[in-house]
């Protein structure tokens, strides 16, 4: 597309980057069709192409973001489905990041929204605060209709998503090192996710067991923290940078002790953002090499384990698994086959979903900030799951797990929990009713042998 920046504007690195992105876009409109918000809203302004066009106008004229751009950027899920579709390679991710920073600084937002966003940013990345908030949330849950009626639909949505208390006591508490029983051949750091270790610590437990069984030493460090995704998606760039730098320091300290073979992520939403550290930190001078060094070691757990030979599963199940690849995995990190391959090798029957490229509506804090579209997408996803009638739904990100668990009647787990179960771990929380069936199958198999 034609752009109208002045030479002076183009001396600004951000505007130069934006200009390059706009020049690649031919405004063909293919992205509209696979955009998670456009499929619901049917409005150009809720499509990547429409947003790109509005951002272009804002940046070219140097004007402050108006209400319309703010509203429609806020309705973007950042699922990045458009980037998988775009044949021109338009970098929507970094363009939308840029716009969000601008909107956060200068965009018009009602107090209610600013309050909710501030609350999320100051609670969710901090596990202790988050744990307290969850307890409070459980107490406040019955008051959802009141909040909704008072116009606080975001707070109501927040409470809606507070899970009922399950068996949540983690096996691997706090920081530490899990050493494999046999010979150790690799050493990795597991990023345990801010919300994940409170909401479903079993995901981390399963990940640790799964890797330790393969001779991998797994470190969980108290010094690493939030990846910064939450703040980045809300346009709070400096907060995101702070989180990223803290992690870099923690990684460096560990690497100084002994070489790290991988920084493992089992919440793909975090993975997309950690893999993007080189971009996020591009203007921080003097750490370029360090950032490049570590970002080359970041793996989603499915990528890291893809080359391992797990051998025969301890218990071969005949379970039908509907696999929902999170957008952050499929579009954000272009991970397409690894989770399916791992699950199939472990003896699960995998079913893919229709409209697999469309977001479930979770999208980080989206289901809190945009409950209307999020609910519609959640129901849509639930309908596709229902068509498959699976025993269990597997995914790779806590957000999707919570969202689908909320909308679908089928149990939802992280795929590492299924893998761990198949290779000798405990039955995942919520699948107890399937254990009998699996045991029966095991008995028949033994008899047949």
């Amino acid at each position: 597309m034609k752009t109208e920046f002045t030479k002076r504007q183009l001396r600004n690195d951000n505007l130069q980057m934006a200009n390059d992105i706009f020049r690649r876009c031919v405004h063909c409109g293919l992205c509209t069709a696979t955009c998670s918000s456009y499929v619901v809203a049917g409005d150009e302004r809720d499509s990547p192409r429409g947003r790109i066009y509005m951002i272009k106008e804002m940046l070219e004229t140097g004007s402050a973001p108006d209400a319309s751009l703010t509203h429609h950027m806020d309705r973007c899920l950042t699922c990045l489905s458009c980037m998988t579709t775009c044949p021109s390679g338009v970098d929507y991710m970094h363009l939308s990041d840029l716009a969000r920073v601008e909107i956060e600084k200068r965009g018009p937002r009602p107090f209610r929204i600013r309050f909710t966003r501030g609350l999320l940013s100051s609670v969710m990345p901090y596990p202790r605060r988050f744990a307290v908030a969850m307890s409070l949330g459980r107490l406040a849950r019955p008051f959802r209709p009141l909040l909704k009626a008072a116009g606080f639909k975001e707070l109501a949505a927040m409470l809606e998503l507070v899970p009922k208390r399950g068996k949540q006591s983690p096996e691997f508490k706090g920081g530490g090192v899990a050493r494999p029983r046999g010979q150790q051949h690799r050493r990795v750091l597991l990023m345990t996710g801010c919300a994940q270790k409170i909401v479903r610590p079993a995901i981390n437990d399963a990940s640790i067991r799964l890797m330790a069984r393969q001779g991998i030493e797994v470190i969980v460090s108290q010094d690493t923290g939030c990846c910064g995704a939450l703040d980045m998606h809300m346009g709070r760039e400096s907060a995101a940078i702070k989180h990223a730098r803290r992690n870099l320091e923690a990684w460096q300290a560990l690497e100084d002790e002994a070489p790290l073979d991988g920084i493992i992520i089992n919440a793909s939403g975090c993975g997309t953002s950690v893999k993007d550290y080189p971009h996020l930190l591009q203007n921080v001078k003097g750490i370029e090499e360090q950032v490049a060094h570590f970002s080359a070691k970041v793996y989603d757990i499915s990528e890291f384990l893809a080359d391992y030979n797990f051998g025969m599963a301890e218990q071969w199940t005949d379970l039908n698994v509907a696999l929902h690849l999170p957008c952050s995995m499929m579009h954000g990190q272009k991970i397409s086959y690894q989770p399916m391959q791992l699950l199939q090798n472990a003896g699960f029957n995998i079913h893919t979903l229709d409209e697999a490229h469309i977001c479930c509506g979770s999208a980080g804090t989206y289901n809190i900030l945009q409950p209307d579209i999020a609910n519609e997408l959640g129901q849509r996803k639930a309908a596709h799951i229902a068509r498959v009638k699976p025993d269990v739904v597997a995914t790779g990100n806590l957000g999707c797990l919570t969202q689908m668990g909320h909308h679908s009647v089928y149990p939802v787990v992280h795929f590492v929990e299924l893998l761990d179960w198949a290779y000798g771990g405990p039955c995942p929380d919520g699948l107890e009713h399937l254990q009998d069936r699996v045991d029966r199958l095991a008995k028949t198999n033994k008899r047949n042998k």
Partner: protein
Amino acid sequence: MGIFTTVSNRVAAKVPRSLWRDLKEVLKPDQLILDESGRRAYETDALTAYKVMPLAVIMPETTEEVAAVAEIAHRYSIPLVPRGAGTSLAGGAVPIETAIVLCLSRMNKIIDIDYTNRTATVEAGVTNLAISQAVDRDGYFYAPDPSSQLACTIAGNIAMNSGGAHCLKYGVTTHNLLAVKMVTADGQVLEFGGSFFDPIGYDFLSLIAGSEGGLGIVTEATVMLRSKPEGARPILLGFDDIDAAGDCVAEIIGEGIIPVAIEFMDRPAIKVCEEFAGAGYPLDVEALLLIEVEGSDEEIDAALQQILRIASKFNPSHKRIATSAEEAATIWHGRKSAFGAMGRISEYLCMDGVIPLSKLSTVLEKISEICKSYKFEVANIFHAGDGNLHPLIMYDANKPGEIERVEKCGAEILELCVLAGGCITGEHGVGIEKRDLMPLQFDTLDFDNQMRIKQLFDPDWRLNPNKVFPLKMSQAFQDTGSSLLSEDDA
């Protein structure tokens, strides 16, 4: 959100306030876009060289709403520009500043699928691909497949009488359309056709297909479904010589073989598509033919043997038959993404001329000469089977004067097509882009007759205004009843 705040442009100032009040009565607030930034998102389509901000954008959800809006627009003499997904490469959805854009993308429901009669009835805003996806599991598909099929809507396809790669065998939109529901300029709802092939009386459907939204606003369509073939397999044939590829196509068709599709790519196009899709296209050939045949395995084998036999006369330097469904999908993915992938290297103007097959190689040679004379690079990618050319002329949109130069270059190419016995548009339509080139094809008598038909449906010329006909001629016709220009104007 300030949805109903006053529109802040000089045109809107002339519109009576009661218009907004009347619209508000038939629409929900979120169906009416009046703010500047919102309207801007609708000022252009996939031909961004043209852009005009509309007076307002309306997003109807039912035929009744479209009719109600049309009736109001009729009363206030407001022009209406229908829009689907805005993927037109000819500026078909570009508004004028006094017009309201009627965006039908929310009308995206599939109303009925009738396998007994092999029809699907859908709302206007359903995407082309969504129809095929809805019936895929049951072994059916909707045949016309424009490259933008993922996003473009069925009503847009009807407006432009869209084709696509597979039209060589199955025909274009008009051959696959059985009925439409259409809202007229004054808000009446008309129905044409039915779920049968031969409608009684005049064949209005053929008139509506390709009328570019100028006769009415299609809100529903019944289209033909076809059974999926038992199998389909593409073959890639690479040539070191463009002529050889062109002659090969002519001979394949000449021998009476009708593959489902014959697609042509030249060297620059191959490179771009390969970089995007990794389809395994050979990078060391001058021309690549992608030919697809379908049927049972035996039929496919027989047809491919026949094609290979003919091709061997032209010394192809590369031959590859897809061996799996995945391989076939990747091969097509590369071709279908061609236009967008072109954006990776340059802006481009996409031409849409048609020529008789026998002239393919000479025309291609002349196209490259024309572009060379303007110092433009050109990539050719097109439906060779039916002679529908899509030269993509690459240019720098930010360089002053380039857009005018590239349009002139394009016009020369289209004139070449007409001289070769072809025409200026195969499937993208005339829109804004080619309206002033129409006299290459038609004389005053032709125009008069066409405009009489337009006037019959749309007496005030309010539907998708300023499209298709040369501006001066349509103005002359509206003033005098004839498109004959006075000497000053001509």
